């Protein structure tokens, strides 16, 4: 029987604080007058900061909690910091957007916080049931967030689509868990891993369980062929929510993937490897090729985020400490550039998100050179040009891949990133090389949005020029998995 200790609570303190603030915001919502809902946003930000401080506190005394179903280790701390960063940036970037679109409701912030709680559990759990709960908490919050512009049909469609396919996906994942339980008699990752530590123990059923779990995660990662929902949802959802969706749950799912595929079931051998290889290759190619034809910036970035999932999968396929730390580094870089890009697009789109076509960006550089330069940096980082985070992220991923002798996959990924240059540059071409007046240029950037841009762009250059610290942290984070 599991005995309850206070250290257990301390080890999930960040999650507790986030959840408390989430609930508190919901309770306080009716008492805050209509014009001042921003206060709730600041409260949410306070919660995120508090959770950050709590993580720092927790990291002083790492260890397992709740009888081994939670692990407060370097791995989970890294991801928790990542999620908190994303949550803070999204909250900052949303306040003006919600005001402008008359969708300023307190629930928004509490859903962001609760979604973050779910993601933290996705990264920190070492028990399949806990992982599943984390997955569900984050999913349900994001389903609601996707439909947050209630009067907008695209937003509604996005929410419904995301909900239907998402619940389907989690069912797959649950089915996989059931198989693992049936085979090993436990849902604890340590226990299950011990039962399946020999290659000979990988029967058809065990491999089937692994595939089912991969399918479930594949939806969250939007890997091919489970990416069908992604463009519609990313396009339909409010843009700040898309920023959150495209990074948070994805990073969470990658955390699970790393824990399960590279940690617990690393003995699965070639079968798991083959699944990862194929899905990495397909995801990159489809994401990039489809993005070439897009005219809507949100949709273009949606396909680009599919492609990025493909690159990250190359790192997962490579495996080992190198691969894992590269994946984690890339997730940090990806979070910065994707959140920055979506928040900027959201702000420029104007009320009702009217201006989201590439055409709308025509001539932006002439009227707003600063804004255009910011977007250019974000896009260049997404394309992976040197001195930005995107380049070093890719470099580390491919270094790991070459180390694991995945030369074919690396060359494919590199060629894919050349293809991606074309579509990122279409936006740059529109901004710099055609001269027309654009309505977009009238967009006002309030200071919270400027802060988001400042943080993301400085972060991109910081990671791109002095990666040691973050890379060191991500390498430390892989220690629990080295046997």
């Amino acid at each position, binding site marked *: 029987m599991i005995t309850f200790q206070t250290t257990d609570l301390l080890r999930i303190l960040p999650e507790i604080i986030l959840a408390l603030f989430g609930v508190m915001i919901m309770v306080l919502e009716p008492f805050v007058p209509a014009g001042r809902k921003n206060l709730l946003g600041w409260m949410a930000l306070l919660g995120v900061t508090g959770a950050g401080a709590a993580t720092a506190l927790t990291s002083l005394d790492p260890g397992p909690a709740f009888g081994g179903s939670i692990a407060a280790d370097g791995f989970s701390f890294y991801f928790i910091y990542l999620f908190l960063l994303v949550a803070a940036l999204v909250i900052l970037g949303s306040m003006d957007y919600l005001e402008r679109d008359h969708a300023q409701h307190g629930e928004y912030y509490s859903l962001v916080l609760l979604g973050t709680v779910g993601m933290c559990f996705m990264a920190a759990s070492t028990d399949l049931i806990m992982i599943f709960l984390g997955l569900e908490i984050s999913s349900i919050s994001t389903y609601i967030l996707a439909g947050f512009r209630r009067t907008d049909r695209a937003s509604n469609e996005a929410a419904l689509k995301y909900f239907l396919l998402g619940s389907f996906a989690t069912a797959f994942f649950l089915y996989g868990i059931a198989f693992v339980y049936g085979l090993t008699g436990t849902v604890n990752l340590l226990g299950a891993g011990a039962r399946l530590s020999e290659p000979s123990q990988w029967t058809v059923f065990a491999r089937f369980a692994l595939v089912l779990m991969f399918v479930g995660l594949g939806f969250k990662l939007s890997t091919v062929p489970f990416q069908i929902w992604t463009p519609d949802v990313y396009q339909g959802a409010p843009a700040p929510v898309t920023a959150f969706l495209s990074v948070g749950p994805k990073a969470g799912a990658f955390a699970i993937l790393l824990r399960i595929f590279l940690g617990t079931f690393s003995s699965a051998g070639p079968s798991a490897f083959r699944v990862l290889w194929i899905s990495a290759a397909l995801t990159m190619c489809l994401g990039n090729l489809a993005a070439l034809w897009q005219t809507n910036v949100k949709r273009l970035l949606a396909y680009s985020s599919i492609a990025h999932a493909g690159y990250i999968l190359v790192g997962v396929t490579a495996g080992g400490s190198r691969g894992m730390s590269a994946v984690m580094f890339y997730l940090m870089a990806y979070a910065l550039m994707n959140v920055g890009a979506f928040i900027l697009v959201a702000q420029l789109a104007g009320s009702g998100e009217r201006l989201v076509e590439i055409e709308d960006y025509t001539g932006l550089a002439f009227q707003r050179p600063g804004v255009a330069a910011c977007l250019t940096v974000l896009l260049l980082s997404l394309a992976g040009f040197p001195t930005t985070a995107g380049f070093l992220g890719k470099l580390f991923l491919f270094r790991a891949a070459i180390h694991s002798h995945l*030369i074919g996959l690396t060359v494919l990924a590199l060629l894919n990133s050349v293809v991606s240059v074309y579509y990122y540059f279409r936006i740059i071409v529109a901004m710099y090389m055609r001269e027309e007046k654009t309505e977009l240029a009238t967009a006002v950037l309030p200071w919270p949005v400027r802060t988001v841009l400042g943080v993301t762009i400085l972060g991109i250059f910081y990671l791109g020029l002095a990666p040691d610290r973050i890379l060191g942290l991500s390498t430390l984070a892989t220690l629990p998995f080295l046997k």
Partner: protein
Amino acid sequence: MSWISAHSLTIVTFLPLLGALIIAFLGRERTPAIRWVALLTSLLIFLFAAWLYAALDPHRMGMQFEELHVWMPLPPVNYHLGVDGLSMLLILLTGLLTLISVLASWSSITHRVQEFFIFLLALETGTIGVFASLDLLLFFVFWEVMLIPMYFLIGVWGHERRIYAAIKFILYTMAGSALMLAGILYLYNVTGSFDLPRVLNHLTSASVLSPQAERWLFLAFFIAFAIKVPLFPFHTWLPDAHVEAPTAGSILLAGVLLKMGTYGMLRFCLPLFPGASREFAPVVCVLAIIGIIYGALVAMVQPDLKKLVAYSSVAHLGFCVLGIFVFNAQGLEGSIYQMFSHGVSTGALFLLVGMLYDRRHTRLISEFGGLATLVPVYSTFFLIVALSSLGLPMLNGFVGEFLILIGAFHSHAAYTACAAVGVVLAAVYLLWMYQRVFYGDISKESNRTLPDCNFREKLMLAIMAAFILAMGVYPKPFLRRMDHSVTAIMLRLQKAPMIYAERAPAGHLGGGR
């Protein structure tokens, strides 16, 4: 002073960026100030580069002015700069041509002047960085970063089809460099270092690469460089980019950026993969000769002056590649010399064509005729440059081409025979063009009012003409400084067959190291 000499390469690399920063903080409206800052910066860099070139010790083997700092501890990437006669010559060329480009854009760029000069100077930093880097990853960083300013220079200030040309330029180059990055990572995986001297040592002292791996790596690097050169059949981006770019862009593109390809072959392909280089040499030489003849033939039938000059670059760079892959001292020296002299000649040709375009807004040969009597100064300079480009003795083009042809003869007489056709064809297309533009009757009335060169233009052309004459008459100071670079490459190449023999399983060539 000691600080300056200890960090001289860092200074020469990042000084342009400093100038760009100053320009960025000047107001958009203060165009005269912006131009002067750009001019003074580029002049300072040129003088500094010239001083460094003069200070280069011709009697010392290996790299000079080296700087080594750790950039990232893991993976171990170093900020490692260093130059020898080869790379310093190209840095000097970059300084010279950027200075000329600033002058050439003085009055022809009136639109978004601030951004133009920022990109121009940023491009200089990237280019000098490419030539000064001794770390594979640092080299790659500069190699890619330099694309962005060039992309904007073509795409924003270019002519009608500029967007197409700009994106074609960047996609071609990136496709090549993607393969190179894979190669760099593979080399790192084998040797555990990105540092060029260390990688070289590792490859020389132990046979870590199988011949098969060496072949693939050679191709990964070589294709990236061949696209940049551009070697036939990778040349299709070049006419578009050259023709659509503004004058300054064309000067730098032809003068410096193409040299990054041949420089890469000399610095990376040959020393790192000597065995594979030898294996592929016949193919490369044949492609280079095809490039020489094909480029010349296509140049001959161009109705557009700028296209003619662009295709002549394909031919001239063919000579450079040929000189590299015949693997002897004459060929290599000629090739390096030709790299510099093509930069000067073709840069000057693009400059002259640009001046004509500024006046008449056309570059069609058929629009001109009889200019010699109308603009005598311009015509004289054009003649000097055209003669240097076709390789007239006593002018710079001759020295390089002559050495390359001698080198090729030692390797294979047939190479020389075929390549020499290119020399004749160069005379044909340049002189025929000169005849149609400058001699004959004045066919178009609008040409009668053409103004001759003003002081700024005369100054630029005089600088170029001085280089053309000096390099043709007295090439020794340049050749002397590249001797050791060539020797180093030759030594490395001569070791290659032994490495192959050691690897041979049969052991009849046995014996330890």
